[in-house]
């Protein structure tokens, strides 16, 4: 009916958007995509301190399965990730409901939230010293001093030898709570006031307000927090490194820290890459799960100006 005369976009206009994303793309290419490929490549070599890599096929992976450290390390990783997740989420939930429902609009509610955010704002190197001090193995440590003054103990207890994992988890939880708290608080905040009023008119108890109104609206944020925190716990080892460096022995070494130590402490770069590939794989699967939860069509909006 109409002959469509196709107008060719001038070259200048075609490349215009790409100029904006070029610096970012270059960085991503060199420091994300390239390392990802290189990690896979290195995992099949025996690259070590001698810096002369040879292709060794799947030797590294065979070694992983016979590594006598591995059962303990996988156990550590699971305990660390699951406990940190469950406890921090529980507290995030309690704080959010307390400040956004019971104390909604109160100045103190804001104060509580601001205070709770502090552990995640403080640089981690400073944050960990607090925990180091509390559980310090000498008589100067807070708990030791306290217990000694109460007469409970006569000798200082070496907390880091006894419960290193518990301390690591505790420190992680306290600084992770705020992230979940923010998401949950804003979700609770978006519940219309009328819903509460209606529930009260219907004679609902506080318990049923929480279980029938608040918790259902938190379904998606909770799922998001679960997956994204799991990704963080499985892949990141900063607190562990600062607090215990994986010790004592390998009591607090998680899989990702193990990969780091193999590569940078023992210089088994090839083997380290192979171990980290497992972490990469777990993180990747979790990331894909996270992405599936999002509505991408809503995120991708076309330009409403045509050049």
């Amino acid at each position, binding site marked *: *009916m*109409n*002959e*469509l*005369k196709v*107008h060719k976009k001038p070259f200048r206009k075609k490349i215009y958007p790409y100029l904006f994303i070029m610096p970012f793309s270059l960085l991503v290419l060199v420091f994300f995509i390239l390392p990802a490929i290189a990690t896979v490549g290195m995992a099949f070599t025996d690259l070590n301190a001698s810096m002369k890599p040879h292709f060794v096929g799947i030797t590294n992976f065979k070694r992983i399965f016979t590594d006598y450290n591995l059962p303990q390390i996988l156990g550590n990783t699971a305990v660390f990730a699951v406990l940190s997740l469950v406890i921090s989420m529980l507290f995030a939930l309690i704080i959010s409901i307390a400040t956004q429902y019971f104390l909604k609009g109160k100045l103190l509610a804001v104060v509580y939230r601001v205070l709770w955010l502090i552990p995640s704002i403080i640089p981690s190197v400073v944050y960990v010293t607090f925990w180091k001090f509390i559980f310090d193995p000498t008589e100067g440590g807070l708990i030791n001093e306290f217990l000694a003054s109460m007469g409970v103990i006569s000798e200082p207890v070496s907390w880091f030898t006894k419960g290193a994992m518990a301390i690591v988890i505790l420190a992680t939880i306290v600084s992770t709570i705020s992230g979940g708290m923010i998401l949950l608080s804003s979700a609770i905040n978006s519940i219309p006031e009328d819903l509460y009023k209606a529930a009260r008119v219907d004679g609902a108890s506080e318990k049923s307000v929480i279980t029938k109104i608040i918790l259902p609206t938190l379904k998606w944020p909770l799922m998001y927090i679960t997956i994204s925190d799991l990704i963080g716990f499985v892949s990141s080892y900063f607190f562990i490194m600062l607090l215990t460096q994986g010790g004592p022995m390998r009591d607090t070494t998680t899989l990702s820290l193990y990969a780091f130590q193999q590569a940078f402490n023992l210089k088994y770069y090839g083997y380290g890459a192979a171990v980290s590939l497992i972490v990469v794989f777990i993180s990747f699967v979790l990331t894909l799960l996270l992405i599936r939860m999002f509505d991408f069509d809503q995120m991708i909006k076309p330009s*409403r*100006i*045509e*050049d």
Partner: protein
Amino acid sequence: MITLKNIVKAYDSKKDSSRAVDGLDLVINKGEFVALLGPSGCGKTTTLMMLAGLLKPTSGEIYFGDRLVNHVEPKDRNIGMVFQSYALYPHLTVRDNIAFPLRERKMPKAQAYERAKEMGKIVQIDHLLDRKPSQLSGGQQQRVAMARALAKDPEILLLDEPMSNLDARLKLDVRDEIRKLQRDLGVTTIIVTHDQEEALAISDRVAILNNGKIQQYAPPEELFSQPVNLFVASFLGNPPMNLIDGVIKEENGEQKIVTSGFQFRIPEARKLEAAHIDKPVKLGVRPHDFMLAEQTDSNAFPMKVDLVEHLGSGKLVKVIDPEQKLQTTIRFLADNETDVRHGDTIRMKIRENKFHVFDMTAEGLNLMQFR
């Protein structure tokens, strides 16, 4: 003069169904005030955006005068535009907002500010020049938007629902002011609106759009009295036109429309072509074109009053036929003196020349012949 020739705008070039504008032709004379009117999704805003150059037509040609502007950038078109949200720059003062288009033309700052002040005076906001847009009321923001659009003396002024965010009273004032300003400046103006009252009141000609096509392009009074098709007839007017299914019959040289509830004799002067006889049609009558009839009137028919609504200026009476065979309720407007009540049976007739007959094609063409 603006000429749009067979404009097509497809959002997905492969599918015909995604055409926002589908073969649109329109000529707008210099200095004319034209409204694009239609329901949402009819393509009126898309057409305006193509005139502004923010969207590019898929095919067809747009001329400003003799100049083909299909791929001319908005900044090179010399247009002014007022948006529904006014789109004032929140980080700039009113003065800088009005001066913005001038500064973009490299006009010296002092001169641009002088002009901004002048424009501010014209739209009566010169005392607000140092404010930020967020400190203004909706009506004031609208004036600033007008001043900004007119500051650079544009050849064409485009208005995208400029009054839909104003309250009803203010709308009437602003409407008059815009019309006066446009006439004084002589700027060719195109307004997009979904408000028919506004379109009819303000413009020289109104183009009624539906499904990306122009249905009718005519002065307001003509649209009302001579709608070309069913869409235009039913879109315009409030309360809307009554549409009643019927068949054209001819007896003894007299044409009549037979509906399931009543019959109506077509006056001699309005006779339809013989080809339409025995064909189903839709009879269209506006509510104020029904009237009460004398007992003796041979072209009247009985109706039963179902409901009476008071509109203040008159009464809206809903009637059904006594045997309730008619599928549709008929609305008619009576003056306040007319004494009708629920359950009354009345005799009604249609004003001699004030009815329309539409065929049953998809377009629903008006079969009446207008000289």
